[in-house]
């Protein structure tokens, strides 16, 4: 209402003012002369600019074609190829994300981008076999694809690259599955209620203690490494876990996802107990029968194109396992559980990777004979069982035992995530240090380096792409300022898929002072 009144009064004042404005206006008309030469001069300038632009464009397009063929040369470093001998003061040539050539007497092509690595050590990028919370934007839930959830800008990527991890095998437990697991654990008789409570706390506060059996110190509340004995895991339903392999290609989404199906990954108790083992055998049989039926169907199809295809009774992952395309990955620390897995693998004929394998040092020859590889944590401590002191519990010399028996082993640190919860020296960034503890346990430095590179690559079925410095492999290369497993060593530069993904001086994730 007010505004309408205002309008009226305003229009009145406006009528008064309009007369004066007409007076001003007529005066203004008299003053104006039509001269507009300024515009033409400006036009001439803009045409000149246009002439310049196309030249610049062609210049950039030439550069563009160059970048595809651009060769990067890392010159002067000692190259730890892993699969071959160490090349002293060698050269690595990189083109199009792959290793073009490696050796001592290699000419650097003209126009190549040269990275001086004199006095430095060059190794392939490390592979983290158990990783959580790196390179993902969120927790993938049902209906979400892993490949749509990547975050190449995650800062954990830079932190991981800073210790040399260029490839990560990710595990994802979404909130619903962890709560399910909790509920079922309570159903199984015999599980220590105290452990159950602690695990719950760990899940609730999203704190990663590394070992699920970590206890908290009664006086200070800090986590203590588990030292209790290892019992057989309680039976759990057979439910495969999600595994995916990503490259830690900081800032680049292209080439980040490597594989979404690398393991048939089961929880520790999935193959425990007669019922579980029976179900497992039945499932494998179903898969084998289906593959046979499919073969016959292919033959029948040649004769009769209308032949009905057999129905798939199991998941694609299980079929891949039976076809030995991927391995079964299962966490097994107890020696009798390990023996069970060896037996099953022999009977059912599939590849197995055993996680943990704390008591695996008791049966190295059986593991070697079955062609089973293990993923160990040399610093894990567990007490032997009473009266079985010689054949149970953890063994600091596991790495030596496996090396001499010919059991391929990979190394993971105590915790699988980048942790800022006061677990310094235990989290993912302690991976090279963990390998150093394997050397302390008696294996050679060469084997320890293999345990971070080519052995995990083989477990993942990616030995043709990653794990060593060889012509034709992905250019995932580290330039180190010291021995690979020395705790004082820093990664100076990490190259992933041929691109420099990390530089210590620029990224400032780790100290940049020279020692």
């Amino acid at each position, binding site marked *: 209402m007010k*505004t309408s009144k205002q309008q009226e009064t305003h229009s009145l004042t406006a009528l008064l*003012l309009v007369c004066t404005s007409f007076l001003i206006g007529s005066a203004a008309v008299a003053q*104006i002369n*039509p001269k507009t030469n300024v515009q033409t001069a400006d036009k001439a300038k803009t045409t000149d600019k246009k002439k310049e632009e196309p030249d610049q464009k062609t210049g950039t397009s030439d550069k563009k074609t160059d970048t595809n063929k651009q060769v990067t040369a890392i010159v002067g470093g000692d190259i730890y190829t892993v699969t071959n001998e160490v090349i002293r003061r060698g050269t690595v040539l990189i083109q199009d994300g792959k290793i073009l050539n490696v050796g001592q007497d290699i000419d650097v092509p003209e126009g190549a981008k040269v990275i001086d690595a004199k006095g430095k050590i060059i190794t392939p990028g490390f592979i983290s076999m158990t990783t959580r919370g790196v390179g993902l934007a969120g927790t993938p839930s*049902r209906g979400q694809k892993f490949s749509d959830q990547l975050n190449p*800008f995650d800062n954990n990527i830079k932190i991981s690259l800073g210790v040399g991890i260029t490839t990560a095998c990710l595990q994802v437990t979404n909130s619903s599955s962890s709560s399910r697991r909790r509920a079922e654990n309570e159903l199984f008789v015999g599980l220590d209620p105290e452990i159950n409570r602690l695990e719950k706390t760990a899940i609730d506060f999203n704190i990663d203690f590394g070992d699920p059996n970590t206890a908290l110190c009664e006086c200070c509340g800090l986590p203590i490494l588990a030292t209790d004995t290892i019992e057989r895991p309680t039976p759990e339903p057979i439910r495969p876990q999600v595994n995916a392999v990503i490259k830690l290609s900081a800032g680049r989404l292209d080439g980040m996802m490597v594989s979404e199906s690398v393991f048939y990954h089961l929880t520790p108790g999935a193959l425990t107990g007669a019922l579980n083992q029976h179900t497992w055998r039945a499932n494998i049989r179903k898969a084998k029968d289906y593959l046979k039926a499919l073969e016959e169907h292919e033959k029948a199809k040649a004769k009769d194109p209308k032949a009905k295809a057999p129905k798939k009774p199991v998941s694609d992952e299980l079929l891949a396992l039976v076809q030995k395309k991927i391995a079964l990955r299962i966490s097994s620390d107890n020696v009798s559980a390990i023996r069970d897995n060896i037996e099953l693998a022999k009977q059912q004929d599939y590849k197995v990777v055993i996680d943990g394998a704390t008591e695996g040092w008791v049966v190295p020859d059986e593991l070697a004979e079955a062609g089973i590889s293990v993923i160990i944590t040399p610093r894990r401590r567990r007490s032997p069982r009473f009266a079985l002191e010689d054949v149970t519990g953890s063994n600091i010399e596991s790495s030596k035992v496996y090396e001499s028996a010919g059991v391929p082993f990979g190394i993971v640190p105590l915790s699988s995530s980048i942790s800022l919860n006061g677990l310094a020296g235990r989290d993912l960034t302690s991976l090279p240090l963990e390998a150093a503890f394997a050397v302390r346990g008696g294996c050679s430095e060469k084997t320890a380096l293999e345990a971070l590179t080519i052995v995990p690559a083989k477990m993942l079925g990616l030995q043709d792409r990653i794990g060593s410095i060889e012509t034709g492999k992905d250019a995932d290369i580290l330039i180190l300022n010291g021995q690979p497993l020395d705790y004082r060593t820093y990664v100076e530069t990490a190259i992933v898929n041929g691109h420099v993904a990390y530089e210590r001086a620029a990224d400032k994730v780790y100290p940049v002072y020279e020692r």
Partner: protein
Amino acid sequence: MTYRKFILFPLLICAMTACHGLADDVIAYRGATIETVSKAGSIQNGTVLLRNGKIEAVGSKVDLPTDAKIVDVSGQTIMPALVDIYHPITISGLSSGSASRTVVFNGRVFTIPGSSSTAAPTYVKLSDVVDPLSLDSDLSKLARYGVGFANIVVRGYGHSIHAKATPDDSASSIVNPDGTLFLSVTNSTASLDVLRKGLKGSKSRSSSASTSSPTSSTSLWAAVKEGKAPLILNVNNAATIMYVLQIQKEYDKVRMVIVASGADIYRSLDQLKDRKLSVLIKAGIDIAPRSNQRINVAKLLAEAKIDFGFSASLDRSLDSMPDTPLFPVSQLVKTGLPKDKALSALTMSPAKMLGMEKTLGSIEVGKQANLLFLNGAPLDAGTTVQQLLVEGKSVYENQ
């Protein structure tokens, strides 16, 4: 509510009332410095002649017809009104809570993940659900900020409306109910699939799309795919920009406008180069991710020759209604952004992104008389808004 007062320039109103329907509305503003944001550049002591809400002449010397009302605005600067091509509004009853939501708080756009991130965002045709009268407060905010034309969107996915900032006449503010396709993208399968399927699906249906109603989402996607219409994508992080770029590779004709924060653009700058897209950011100095280093993203974009524009609605000060809306831009100019790029990013570039460069974005003959009057050089720190004309009519006056 002083900004709603109508009359400070009574001449204009009087001319409108007196000559309504009888003769042409002719008015000349003279004596001002005119930032044309065109080839003509900056004109000292120039004159703009408006007829019926359009620009009839502009220059240092303009022949004024006898029926022209003449307003002396010496000492002021006239520039084209700002063009804001991403103004999100909230409509009550539309939020199902299932998809992620874009919420404007203090003029800042936040994307809040919904209860279930797996749900695909649902398509909304804004002109079907929005009451033009409810746009009043939004339009007055924009007018006060110097925005003459806005592309109005909501959270999620849909079809925007184009509106002129005429807060006291919001019933007729909608100039184009069939606006532009917009989509909020996160790096989740659900929202990325909307983009993938939209671009992919339109191919198979493009033949039938011409027969179906011109406003259906399929025909919109078809137009987007052929490059006839732009696609405005609000991305919630730098990783999403990577996904969008990956999808865009397959569709070379698509004209994308990426709405993103300065920090996210800064992270993905290398990969935005040499791509056919535009970027819409908030004007102002940003802080580089994981550091306290200040960055001028607009300057970096200009150096990388990436087309960019500013959106007033991304600026948190929109709600606080500052007298000096161009202050953040002046900071950018002070720290190295070329002045002409800055002016263009406020006006001509967004107009081009929307495909409306023929009617908006500069002071050129034949264009709409959306003019912003300032009391000094537009990119000086203390310059305040004096008046905003939309289609020749005053919609905001500062007093």
